[in-house]
């Protein structure tokens, strides 16, 4: 089994020592102590493990670390810059778009990927894009609001 010794995470080259077949989620959490990405189902059905790989929302629980090596990986920990939250993180706080918060990192990473592609998504477009992310507490309407507000904030120069 080929070995992976380096990953590009949140702009940093990080040393890892792992076989290429492990899940990216597992390596992020257990090797790199980046526990913001969550395990929810292990089959890509709930979105709690969502990270960006070269800007694309990706389910890290069903992605091998081998396929992510050499690519730009962004996790929830990489969004805050110099103590300043990403506009979508701020919008989640402003809309109180969370209860237990366990789905929140995955929701935010999916939302960031959407906003990178579509700077002013309609509510229908948000719903369609976010369909693969589960919030068991049922804060979906607030998450839609947060994404819409973040889109406005980014256009207004938020980032």
């Amino acid at each position, binding site marked *: 089994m080929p070995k992976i010794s380096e990953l590009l995470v949140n702009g940093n080259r990080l040393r890892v020592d792992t076989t290429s077949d492990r899940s990216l989620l597992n390596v992020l959490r257990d090797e790199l102590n980046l526990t913001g990405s969550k395990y929810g189902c292990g089959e890509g059905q*709930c979105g709690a493990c969502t990270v960006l790989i070269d800007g694309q929302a990706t389910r890290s629980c069903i992605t091998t670390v081998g396929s992510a090596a050499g690519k730009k990986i962004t996790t929830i*920990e990489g969004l805050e810059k110099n103590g300043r939250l990403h506009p979508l993180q701020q919008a989640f706080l402003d809309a109180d778009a969370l209860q237990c918060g366990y789905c929140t990192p995955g929701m935010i990473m999916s939302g960031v990927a959407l906003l990178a592609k579509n700077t002013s998504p309609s509510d229908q477009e948000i719903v369609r894009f976010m369909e693969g992310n*589960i919030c068991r507490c049922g804060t979906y309407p607030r998450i839609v609001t947060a994404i819409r507000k973040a889109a406005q904030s980014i256009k207004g120069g938020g980032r």
Partner: protein
Amino acid sequence: MSESHPSDQPIELERYELQAEPAYRFDFELARRDFFKLLGGGLVLVFTLDALGSQESGRQEGESGRRAPTPSAPKDIAGWLHIAEDGSVTVFTGKVEFGQNIRTSLSQVVAEELRVPVSSIRVLMGDTDLTPFDIGTFGSRTTPTMAPQLRKAAAAAREALIDLAADEWKINRASIGVKDGKLIDERTAKSIEFGRLTKGQKLLKVISADTATTPPDQWKIAGKSVAKVDGRSFVTGGHRYTSDQKLPGMLVGRIVRPSALNATLASVKTGDAEAIPGVTVVSDANFVGVAAPDAQTAARAAAAIQTEWKAEPQPAAKELSEYLRKQATSAQQVSSQGSITDGLERAEKKLNQTYTVAYIAHAPLEPRAAVAEWREGKLTVWTGTQRPFGVRGELAETFRIPEDRVRVIVPDTGSGYGGKHTGDVAIEAARLAKSAGKPVKVVWTREEEFTWAYFRPAGVIDVSSGVSADGTITAWEFHNYNSGTAGIQTKYAFANQKIVFHQTKSPLRQGSYRGLAATANHFARESHLDELAHALKMDPLEFRFKNLKDERLKAVLSAAASAFGWGKPKSAADRGFGIAGGFEKGGYVAACAEVAVDRATGKAKLIRVVEAFECGAIVNPDQLRNQIEGSIVMGIGGALFEAMDFDNGKVVNPRFSRYRVPRFSDTPLIEAVLVDRKDLSSAGAGETPIVGLAPAVANAIFDATGIRLRSLPLAPNGLKL
């Protein structure tokens, strides 16, 4: 071990709801010593439930004994509060945060009484070594019971600080005001911070049960929408849930599960797993598990163990209703008034119908998890449980050690909805850690979560009724098999009624769930009322009012109907309107639903829900809305499509790809109408908003199609039109 789940045990939810007295007492003397050791000096306020406590009120005790004689050690400590020498305020409560946002609402009520900003309050929750005994976070009890206690502690703290300032300044306490963490001499504007007053002292005060608190109509901080106090740690991924905890040298545990529910271990071969370097294998009674340095090795080791299990034949989901009826073991008459026979005789129309509800899963997004560590004979377990003290008891019993050798710590948890009462995963992690001699973390897989947790009880409900021509219900006989007694009593004025709960054997392990059986009982009752209204060609809302004297229930029905536009024309021919109302755990709820039915595909889509809710004086309007919205969204699953499928001891759909939960596209337009009653004490709100949705949706589907659906979930595969 935890693997044994006898199926004929009394249902757990009733036990949790009815157990009023704490099973354990907190040793206050020990706690006090630990307390000052932990936090240094300052002022500690203790709320006690003892009658004695009020007599002790007002005494102060210095550690040196120089102030007042030591008060007799109060038992039954319910809450406490500490003001440190730096002025920081820490509240201690055995309640836990699972997303219901009580960390925020409890901070608000304490800030209110102490006249300090919410941000200056720290709430330490669910740690059996540091927080007072608490029976558990369930039954919507935090707001009606814990909040008033902490409120009193804070009010007493404020008064004690005024006394200290009066001593310090040698002035009358009446001229001392409290604002922004300072005491102010209102004549001279001289001020002193809380912390400076307590400096160098270890002060203890017992709060009397009758401490006066600020009435709701004068609230300035409570009653307002305050955002989740530690929200930032969640949106940055910084918060460490149990499953994110790490200890030095920690191993990863994995359990070898039985071949079927209720199976017992016949044989086990562990040699191959034991040969893997770094692996510890435990085979003890019905428990088989491994601990290994990492998750892959643990999975490999678990797979290398060969087991044989024995199980008796067990029923399948499709035989459930018949099974529950046949297996009834005992009946409990919940209500008996008047005469059903007389009532039926006077009836113009009679109706007998049966309603059923399926087992459903809580499916909290964070699966059950625990990290266990044994050190010098003491066991510490981090785990997401709603009953930290209950789980401490389970661990002590399992490992035959005294409770004071067990500490349970509950990090804010990835939800539970009543599903995380038990200590299974804590016991598993502790058992593995004991043999491995190192800390062990166990995180259940989603499949384990869907199989080895417990479920909302399924149920069969028979309703027989009679109604006179003017719409008065003359007879009401209600038999609930298995799902439970929550919400079984009615606020309707039924002169002749008989309500019975039948306990039965359950093929699946079952227990508490958001709202308990109130969803099942409201579904049966409010569907049946709708059927009667239609049989008499009466408007369903008018029909309810005809049989209702309870003003609070009438008020929410009116509020929901008015905001929804009940009685107004529908926007399209495919639409249907439904209404349902109810009461549970101190909260009054009414829901109006609008559904659209696609005649070609049979798909029933929930378009719009308006729900009015009244729970006394509102502590935090926006978080209350959040709970109502969340209850509605969660309720959609149980109403329309969620159901456990099982056959002969195996769960057939233990994955999100096979067990559908509500998603973004299932979410209707939601309007929450808050009825604020500042003249009434606050009730909890995490559960009751879920109970009205299912019947409102069923009634709306009938309105749209003429099809009466009497089983939850209503339309897992669409409607047959």
